[in-house]
């Protein structure tokens, strides 16, 4: 039986207006938040591994109170336990600090496989999985679109710009998965009710053994200097046909290196 940890996170709903708080320069998490879709797929991948060869799945999140909803969703889908890392002092953590907190939480628990989404839809650094693997000393295989675990080995297809490569690692390992990995199942009612009875452990700075002086935005290695909203899309260029439109179109496409 293998022990699987899957990382999950609440993010602002991509269907609603997302914004960055200009005061704190952080993502505004007061609006509609949902479990990140890529994480649902990561949970699905974890459950499929569990169903194919037996195992236990723990959903791990770091975030404020409502981040627990992401763990609940994973539990309703079929995960067995949850870990919620929550501490005021962790607010504003950058990728390095987040990976440190996750490593502290996962470190001594003997997970055979850690599964993460390739990048979150809010921060989009895509850095946490690799950092976490380094900190935990695990082999890593990122950007997988397929995932199979057999005889202590994880294999999968890693997406690249022009195709994919087959990769393999022996357990323990960390993998990150792309959108294509699987369609997430819907939890059923029994699952929703059972989720509330499954164990969720809460960890703060003290339990993680992280010093207050190392935690949170004030102590982070990276600093957000300024934030700006994406400029509204400008109207395109309209070419009127006076006999030269074909040439103009071709010139335009060539200038954009499209032809």
């Amino acid at each position: 039986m293998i022990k699987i940890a899957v990382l999950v996170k609440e993010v602002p709903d991509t269907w609603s207006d997302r914004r960055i708080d200009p005061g704190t320069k952080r993502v505004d998490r007061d609006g509609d938040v949902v479990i990140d879709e890529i994480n649902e797929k990561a949970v699905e991948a974890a459950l499929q591994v569990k169903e194919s060869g037996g195992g236990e799945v723990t959903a791990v999140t770091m975030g404020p109170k409502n981040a627990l909803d992401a763990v609940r969703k994973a539990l309703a889908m079929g995960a067995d336990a949850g870990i919620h890392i929550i501490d005021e002092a962790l607010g504003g953590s950058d990728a390095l600090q987040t990976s440190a907190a996750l490593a502290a939480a996962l470190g001594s628990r003997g997970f055979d496989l850690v599964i993460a989404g390739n990048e979150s839809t809010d921060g989009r650094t895509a850095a946490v999985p690799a950092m976490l693997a380094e900190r935990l000393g695990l082999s890593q295989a990122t950007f997988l679109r397929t995932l199979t675990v057999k005889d202590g080995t994880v294999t999968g297809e890693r997406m690249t710009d022009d195709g994919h490569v087959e990769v393999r690692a022996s357990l323990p390992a960390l993998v990150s998965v792309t959108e294509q990995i699987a369609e997430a199942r819907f939890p059923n009612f029994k699952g929703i009710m059972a989720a509330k009875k499954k164990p969720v452990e809460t960890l703060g700075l003290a339990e993680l053994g992280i010093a207050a002086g190392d935690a949170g935005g004030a102590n982070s290695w990276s600093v957000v200097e300024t934030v700006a909203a994406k400029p509204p899309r400008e109207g395109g260029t309209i070419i009127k046909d006076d006999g030269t439109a074909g040439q103009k179109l071709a010139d335009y496409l060539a200038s954009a290196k499209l032809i």
Partner: protein
Amino acid sequence: MNPQLSEDEHDLSAMVRDFADTVVAPRSYEADTRHELPMDVVAQMGDLGLFGLPFPEEVGGQGGDYFSLCLAIEALARVDQSIAITLEAAIGLGAMPIFRYGTEEQKDTWLPDLVTGRALAGFGLTEAEAGSDAGATRTTAVLDDGEWLVNGSKQFITNSGTPISRFISVAAVTGERTRADGTVTKELSTIIVPHGTQGFTVEPAYDKVGWRASDTHPLTFEDVRVPEANLLGERGRGFANFLRTLDEGRIAVAALATGAAEGCVEESVKYAKSRNVFGVPIGRHQFIAFTIAQMQARVHTSRLAWYDAARRCDAGLSFKTEAAIAKLVASDAAMRNARDATQIFGGYGFMNESLVARQYRDSKILEIGEGTNEVQLMIIARSLGLDG
């Protein structure tokens, strides 16, 4: 969060809404156009546990109650009434009578596949000459040599001809009873007639105005023989049993109608914000905004009405009048909201590919099925001592 709902109920509703939007809705137009129940969607609803919602885990159910079933039906009807009524009928008319009145053997035989959506069953009450007046039933079942011999026909029977339809519970006259005052009445009972039994024919489907993806057929029974053990519930209790079935069904139809009315609001709000006419979004006109505000008020009151009836039902309190009121106001809300929504959509609202056009066609039956609204008024009037 809605204070009327527990956390589990809230999560269930959110989950089914998500399922409705991502799995059901993309298939609805095609299914409606082809007059065909999308069986793969039904299978996915089975995986989700929807067909087992109100049944205990001992029989393979999800351990919810009638209220939770109605929440799911409401969530589905926002985008597709055909799918919602398929679930409603599968449970209310198919599985529930077996669960409630069946013998242990009948339950063991039929429930496992019904509560998982691997099979569907129907309830055959309505006949050409017996709709609102079920007492006028003509179909007969006579005990003959240890078997029921069934003869007659039924009409408008939901879920009776799908590829996974397994049996029909048929309301039939099984004899006569003499009351204490000497009057003679028909003895009504319910007989389980499995598909494939010789003499039982599922006639071609109806060409319906709405609920076109839902499966509805006339049925004929010609010297159909089934074992004596296929009697469902006590002999002579047929009438009482299906009245209970219909009372509950009204709550579910009220929930369905509420969902339909809500779907019309959702579509109208989106359209009012995005459709520009004379240079402004039409929602800026007070007339349009107020129309949608009225629609929303109807959704809210309908919802409170079915919540109340369903809670009473689950608590074992009397709910007959409340169910009738809920069905009356909610079906009215669905009908009016569909009419308002199509008006807001203008010409596009008259095109079958728009959801509001489908809601418009689908909503009319809500005033007719599971007891017409006139029947609901009769029930409410009776509760006031007005026997008419």
